[in-house]
């Protein structure tokens, strides 16, 4: 019987190392002769640099070098615009160190390299920088008013991009609607906050003439390509390794200044250099996300069917746009969610501010979109006196309507086209899990009669996952009994070493213990883009499947010739290829690997007498078309995103005296197509939901009017702890994706998307007697108390 590996809760192969303290994160790497770097950062949100005097710092004992912009040689150019877009008419990227102007608190001004980090930080204090303060732009609504102060004077505007997307005839839809409802909805600025900050170690290897860079990044290949181009090296002379990475959640898919500075310093100084970001730096030097202000309206008929949606929003881009307008573009494309919106007008302006730049954080524009759409749907239900689940049911894209085109171009340049799903079944399932009918009919009236404020919330979402351009995989069967699997994907905890091994084990039918997955090391695999957009299992997983299938074919062909049978008569079980019905006639993959290689220097116990037979052909030992290894490289490039989806329900209680909230239930039905490892999928959902809870109640990066971040520590920027995250109940719905060979869809960001919408829905319902409507997130106890107070005035 074939061994089933897909769908099994295989325990993670990553864990024993990590559990015993033998993980290797970037800061764990200590090389002989290594120097340590620290970055001097701007204390001002917006200022002109008049003069930098580093002479005292340079003279300090233990200081090896101080770099400012002028010292950066080939790196004295602007950092690249990673993702251009026609709507991004005014892109602006930074220098690795500020040249003459700083545009946010935390922007790098100088780099110190010293014999220890302690000395490097001493030296930061000895650098004198004269700044001429410029007026800071902090409030994005004011930033778009005429005569506003400008972040980048030479652009003549604070508007980086103005995007308009139109589907159908929204004007007409709104003119003919029975009802139109408007909302102003805000999601505040937040940040990914992995527990491991960023870090880089760079060293020139004079023996192999290679610049080796260990980087806590989500995209080592992209960094490798950029560094090779910048320093005039051949790509093979730059190796970027993402070792164990302590969480990323989007903020580590970037090309940051330090990723230029540290390798450059290592090249110039001829010694290894390490930089580890500290937490305060992480708050002011690693990209943020989230702030958007939406003016949204929905047009419906008398039965609550959506005729059109119009949404005009401002998106806070921060000081620079290195990652283009991916975040607001995703918001625009995903806003309709699982609902049919035949007429849709979406328009946004991405606005510069003197704050940390914005790029994706888990969810990447989707939590905003989901919040807006679900708030509108709830509003329709409330205004028309309809059940909130019923309004959703009336508007879902139906299972027989796939592929379904939203009508806009998605983040990958492909159509926003939902490939599969079953939204009505998803909602039905979660309603059943939470016992919706009973709660609404019996429990809630009883609780209300007791004077308790307990509500039920619903939220549905879709997520475009597994986008291109492509990823690849190299699979090789080794005569030693190993199966080598390499991809360009790094991981930050998503269990790739386990799930990719499951894919290879299932395709090859070998024991999973035989499989070694190598990831995040450009010396092993050099093409691909990285881990982001919930794409690894879909895109790299599919590439592994395709490469493994080809290797299996090679092995079967070779075995068939050796056994003098037709390949179709062979079966594979447990790593052994044999003739159907005659299990004694066969050989192992490892023997096949030895057979493939005409050297036939066989040794070890796996060698069989097969190997000592004379070659059954004349001519070259390796005939044309044959290779000496069972190996293949395959790439998978999706036609467009594959769309995961989910429906959530929660029951929560509000204490109107304190503004505190307590969850009674939190139920999730999730559809990520075929599940490779349910344990890993559930772990991803748990983590996403926890971040969503952070986004709904706690996580907000606050700037004052001078552009000073006022809560840049874990004391003041609150991440949910085990006490704030409730038990999460999960059910899987599997509608396999028709787009890829595994039928999988992504799951990485799923949980983070719907929670603000879900919580808002539940709070509204809990406080219905008071008439509270939630329109912004996060909503801490004091904001909630304010809402309650205003409603009872």
């Amino acid at each position, binding site marked *: 019987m074939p061994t089933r590996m897909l769908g099994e809760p295989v325990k993670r192969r990553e864990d024993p190392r990590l559990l015993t303290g033998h993980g290797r994160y970037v800061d764990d790497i200590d090389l002989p002769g290594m120097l340590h770097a620290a970055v001097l950062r701007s204390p001002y949100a917006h200022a002109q640099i008049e003069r930098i005097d580093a002479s005292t710092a340079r003279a300090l004992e233990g200081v090896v070098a101080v770099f400012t912009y002028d010292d950066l040689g080939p790196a004295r150019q602007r950092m690249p615009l990673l993702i251009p877009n026609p709507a991004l008419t005014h892109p602006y990227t930074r220098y690795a160190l500020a040249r003459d102007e700083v545009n946010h608190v935390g922007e790098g001004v100088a780099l110190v390299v010293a014999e220890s980090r302690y000395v490097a930080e001493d030296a930061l204090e000895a650098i004198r920088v004269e700044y001429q303060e410029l007026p800071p732009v902090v409030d994005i609504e004011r930033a778009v008013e005429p005569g506003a102060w400008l972040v980048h004077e030479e652009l003549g505007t604070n508007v980086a991009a103005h995007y308009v997307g139109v589907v159908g005839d929204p004007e007409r839809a709104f003119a003919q609607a029975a009802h139109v409802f408007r909302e102003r909805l805000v999601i505040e600025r937040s940040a990914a906050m992995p527990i491991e900050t960023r870090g880089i170690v760079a060293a020139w290897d004079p023996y192999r003439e290679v610049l080796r860079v260990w980087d806590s990044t989500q995209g080592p290949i992209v960094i490798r390509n950029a560094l090779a181009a910048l320093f005039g090296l051949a790509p093979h002379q730059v190796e970027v390794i993402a070792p164990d990475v302590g969480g990323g959640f989007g903020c580590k898919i970037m090309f940051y200044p330090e990723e230029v500075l540290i390798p450059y310093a290592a090249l110039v100084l001829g010694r290894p250099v390490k930089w580890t970001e500290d*937490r305060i730096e992480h708050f002011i030097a690693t990209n943020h996300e989230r702030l958007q202000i939406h003016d949204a309206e929905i047009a419906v008929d008398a039965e609550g069917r959506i005729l059109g949606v119009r949404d005009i929003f401002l998106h806070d881009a921060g000081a620079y746009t290195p990652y283009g307008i991916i975040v607001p573009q995703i918001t625009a494309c995903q806003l309709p969610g699982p609902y049919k919106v035949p007429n849709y007008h979406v328009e946004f302006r991405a606005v510069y501010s003197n704050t940390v730049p914005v790029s994706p954080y888990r969810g990447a524009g989707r939590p905003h979109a989901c919040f807006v759409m679900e708030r509108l749907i709830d509003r329709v239900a409330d205004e028309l006196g309809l059940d909130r689940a019923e309004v959703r049911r009336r508007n879902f894209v139906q299972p027989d309507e796939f592929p379904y085109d939203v009508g806009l171009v998605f983040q990958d340049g492909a159509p926003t086209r939902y490939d599969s799903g079953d939204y009505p079944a998803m909602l039905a399932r979660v309603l059943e899990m939470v016992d919706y009918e009973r709660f609404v009919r019996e429990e809630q009236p009883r609780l209300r009669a007791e004077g308790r404020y307990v509500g039920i919330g619903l939220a549905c979402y879709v997520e475009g996952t597994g986008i291109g351009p492509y990823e690849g995989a190299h699979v090789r069967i080794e005569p030693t009994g190993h199966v080598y699997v390499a991809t360009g994907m790094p991981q930050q905890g998503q269990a790739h070493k386990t799930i990719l091994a499951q894919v290879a084990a299932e395709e090859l039918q070998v024991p999973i213990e035989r499989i070694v997955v190598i990831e995040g090391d450009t010396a092993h695999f050099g093409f691909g883009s990285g881990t982001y957009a919930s794409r690894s299992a879909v895109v790299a997983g599919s590439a592994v499947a395709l490469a493994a299938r080809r290797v299996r074919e090679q092995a079967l062909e070779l075995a068939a010739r050796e056994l003098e049978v037709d390949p179709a008569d062979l079966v594979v079980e447990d790593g052994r290829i044999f003739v159907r019905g005659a299990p004694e006639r066969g050989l192992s993959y490892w023997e096949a690997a030895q057979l493939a290689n005409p050297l036939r220097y066989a040794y070890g116990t796996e060698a069989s007498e097969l190997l000592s037979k004379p070659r059954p052909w004349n001519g070259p030992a390796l005939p044309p078309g044959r290779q000496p290894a069972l190996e293949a490289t395959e790439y998978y490039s999706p036609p467009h995103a594959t769309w995961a989806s989910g429906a959530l329900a929660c029951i929560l209680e509000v204490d109107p005296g304190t503004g505190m909230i307590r969850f009674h239930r939190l139920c999730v039905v999730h559809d990520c197509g075929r599940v490779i490892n349910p344990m890993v999928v559930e772990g991803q959902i748990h983590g996403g939901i926890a971040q969503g809870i952070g986004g709904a109640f706690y996580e907000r990066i606050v700037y004052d009017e001078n552009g000073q971040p006022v809560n840049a520590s874990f004391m003041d920027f609150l991440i949910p702890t085990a006490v704030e995250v409730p038990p999460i109940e999960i059910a899987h719905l599997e509608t396999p994706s028709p787009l890829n060979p595994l039928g999988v869809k992504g799951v990485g960001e799923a949980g983070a998307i719907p929670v603000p919408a879900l919580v808002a829905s539940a709070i509204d319902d809990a406080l219905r007697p008071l008439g509270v409507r939630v329109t912004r997130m996060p909503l801490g106890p004091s904001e909630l108390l304010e809402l309650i107070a205003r409603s009872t005035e």
Partner: protein
Amino acid sequence: MSAEVGAGSAQRRAIRVTVNGVVYERVVEPRLLLSDFLRHELGLTGTHVGCEHGVCGACTVLVNGEPARSCLMLAVQADGLAIETVESLAPDEERLHPLQQAFWDRHGLQCGFCTPGLLMLLKSFLAENPSPSEEEVREAISGNLCRCTGYQNIVAAALEAARLLREPVAG
């Protein structure tokens, strides 16, 4: 980080610290953090540093059996004390500590960065409270931030480890 050079080196002090049962005698700068001492002087990099201001708990070690944040302690303050780090948990190379086993079985870690701190905290907590409720576990670990797991499987692992520690499997 090397303590051999730089400002403050004039006042370096000799310390004697027992780490995972091994006595180390070193001369260090007074300002050297215990976390940096463990990681970069002794090479025990299993203890991680997440915030350097004592909130995230990733750097939690046991100091004379009590959990402490090694980023909030100086190495000189550990003079004469016994430190336990995650590297000391497993009884040998082949076997895991019940806490480690339960974290593995229950998928209690993803990126693994916060894990050593949680393991050390829980070792001390379960010694004091061998039969905790779920609520008590959640309260106990509420000073350790995890950004990946949503804590659900950490709580499950802690409860399972408590069971394993109460009823060791024969053999």
